């Protein structure tokens, strides 16, 4: 029972961390970044590089975040910016980017599955149940990501401008907010978060050039039912992630893998605002 509850909480934490970058990009830029899977993969391979260089495993996170931010900056400037007014095309272009990232990684690192060293190993006892320390650490990591975004949005000038752009971009521009700049910074941060999440999840399994795709689909679904709100995203991750854990445990892991996709699609059909208050 304890293990099940912990599974649900840690799964929700992982899903939250993975989806947060997609959420802020959708919120501010109003485009779905299908290269999100590619950024997750970049993060995973950042961890691999750190492992191969023999550096401290904790360094994987800053390296991943920086790699994501830099790549995000280039992509925003040359690919995303011309597509602001064509949201459906942006989905396609970013999906193409995901392919490019996947192929480049295949060429550089090979297509085989590789393993990354975790900064924390071993297990601990929680209420009489032995549980992976790293998974517990991910709860803290997700909380830190959430806290970081919340602080950024609520306590900085950029956050204020970003919130203005989310609510009414035209008006924000009219008030002298450089919405292009806000978009650029947001995309970089979103890409950095995605990459960081990639580094966070790889010690749980392994890295391969297409590791991002299954995550992308789940993250995409979670973000759509959250109507651009961090609180809703947390609710969605907990509810749908919890359902996924329950279905995987009690019915079948194969059906479990579909839980989020199916439930989210049905939820949006019944209630287009999803977990948000629409």
């Amino acid at each position, binding site marked *: 029972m304890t293990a099940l509850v912990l599974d649900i909480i840690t799964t929700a934490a992982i899903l939250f961390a993975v989806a947060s970058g997609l959420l802020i990009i959708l919120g501010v830029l109003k485009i779905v970044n299908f290269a999100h899977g590619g950024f997750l993969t970049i993060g995973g391979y950042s961890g691999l590089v750190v492992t191969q260089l023999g550096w401290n495993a904790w360094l994987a996170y800053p390296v991943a975040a920086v790699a994501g931010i830099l790549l995000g900056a280039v992509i925003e400037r040359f690919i995303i910016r011309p597509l602001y007014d064509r949201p459906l095309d942006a989905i*396609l272009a970013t999906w193409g980017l995901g392919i490019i990232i996947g*192929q480049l990684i295949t060429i550089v690192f090979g297509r085989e599955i590789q393993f990354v060293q975790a900064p924390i190993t071993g297990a601990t006892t929680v209420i009489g149940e032995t549980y992976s320390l790293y998974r517990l650490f991910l709860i803290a990591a997700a909380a830190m990501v959430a806290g970081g975004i919340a602080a950024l949005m609520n306590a900085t000038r950029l956050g204020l401008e970003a919130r203005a752009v989310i609510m009414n971009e035209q008006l924000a521009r009219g008030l002298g907010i450089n919405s292009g700049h806000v978009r650029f910074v947001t995309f970089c941060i979103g890409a950095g978060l995605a990459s960081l999440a990639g580094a966070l999840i790889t010690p749980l399994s392994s890295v391969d050039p297409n590791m991002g795709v299954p995550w992308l689909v789940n993250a995409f*679904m979670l973000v759509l039912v959250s109507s651009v709100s961090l609180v809703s995203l947390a609710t969605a991750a907990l509810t749908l992630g919890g359902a996924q854990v329950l279905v995987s445990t009690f019915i079948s892991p194969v*059906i479990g893998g579909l839980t989020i996709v*199916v439930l989210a699609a049905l939820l949006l059909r019944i209630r*287009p605002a999803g977990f948000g208050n629409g």
Partner: protein
Amino acid sequence: MADLTTIPETLTRQTSSGRLVPAGSIAGLCIAATIAGPYLLDAYTVNILVRSFLYAAAALTVDVLWGYTGILTFGQAAFFGIGAYAAGITFTYMDFSPQTAVLALVAGLVASAVVAGITGWISFFHGASPLYAAIVTLALPIIFVQVLYSGGTFTGSSSGLVGYNTFDLSVEAWFTICGIGLVLLTTATWFFVNSDFGRVLVAIRENEQRCTYLGINAPRVKILLMVVMAMIASVAGYAYAGYTVVVAPEIGSFVFGTELVMWVALGGRGTLIGPVLGTIAIDVTSAYLSGNLPYVWKLIIGSIFVLVIVVLPQGIVPVLKSGLRRLWSAATGRDAVPGVAVPALSEAPEARRAGAGSDAAALAVADLARSYGSLKVLEGVTFKALGSELLGIIGPNGAGKTTLMRCLSDGYERTGGTVAMFGRMIARTPPQGVVGFGIGRSFQTTSLFETLTVAECLRLARYRLNKTRMLSHAPTLALPASARHVITATGIDRQLAIECRHLSHGMKRALELAMVLALEPSVLLLDEPTAGLTKSERTLIGSILVDLVQREGLCTLIIEHDLDFVREISTRIIVLHQGKILLDGSVAEVVGSELVRTIYAGAAQQRPAP
């Protein structure tokens, strides 16, 4: 009205005149090529091309859905897979015979039609965002592949089914059959998308909201289209399974679904020929290159794809086409674009208007409310309107006038109260249904179909009343007298071949009015029909409206800011203020009211004009 007498030739668009001959000869040439192909090409290329033809057929269905109708779909892969697996499973477990071959084909068609129907029903509903359909069609192949995995040995799980008995045909025979099939499919689809009904698809892509207010049941059109396209994709998948003697989850996967979309985008969405040629070119090239440079090839395709989406969103074929056209006109000194055949206008037979002969009020609104959360935009709105009444609705900005129009024309909008037309409650009916009750609505900001011609726009408005041709253009366009009066009085009847985006603002407003009138409504809702018009245009529209109301007994509600204009044409005026009816009375009563002047001019008394 501004008169656009000189129309540049390039603004007009090709239509039906003598389409049969060129289309037939091109198709004939292509069929000859597919028969000659096996003798001219090496065995490997022939082998690959069969597969490319089948992929191209699937890409064609994506083009109809996405390129023409605007439904971004990743789901066609799943239907291709359903057709393929229907064949693979049937032939593996029941062996191959002519009977099982038919059985497998029918099973694939039925299964894909059912799945597409369900997918469509989930994806397309009143108020669904275009992104939502993309999500559902993205989930579909993912679910399909998981179902295959769960099938265990029955579906062959991740390795699929191999080596069943199949059609005893040579590769050359497959080439000819699939080639001819693709040519026929492309030709038939070409006639379909260029027909009057094809214009409905484009209209849905351009402005679905406007379509529903013209009484076009856009969700149903999309669902039916998805079912038909799914069935076509399933036949292609069936042939694929018969030809390759292998079915694996990859052919129904999300990745294949995105590849189809990529091929369509690269070739040129909404061109049919672009996706077909694009798919064949890319598939053949990748068959040659992926052996030597597997990852680099995918990298190149991905890079070209991103580049095309960003720089050439229309794809490669349209660019080639316009280049060739320019060369042609430079070489011959003639314009390569033939003129447009304009349908002849004719008199529509007098249809029985909704509510004709009914004693009940044309429009009866009781206790209508609309709130967004705690914000009440309309509250307790109650009034009746009769035929032959021209009811002016005035009030300051934010009074809820446009919201009122929305609540009257869309059964899902109001949060409380009832709306009845001729004694029938509109209940929770989407706009396309409310049109059937007899409502016609024009919008505050002109809402048209930018790339359709004037004639096509008017024909869309007749979709509900007249049959729409699926494979050709009707030679005539029947319009009711009122709509014809508007277009002749404003000179639009001479601009029938012009695309709407080239019309002047005044003409657009007039065209929208004509479209609403072509619906033969009994209750007309006009949201600032004269906004942004010149004085003379305004007078013209005003006199047309008064004439309509008096002669045809239309019940008309008109939102206007110009008090003088309202006073001239109205028979009664309702004043809305902060979501409530403040005054409902004759023109003299309302215009003379001190209260109205106070609201309208702000605090006029306290602050005398400078």
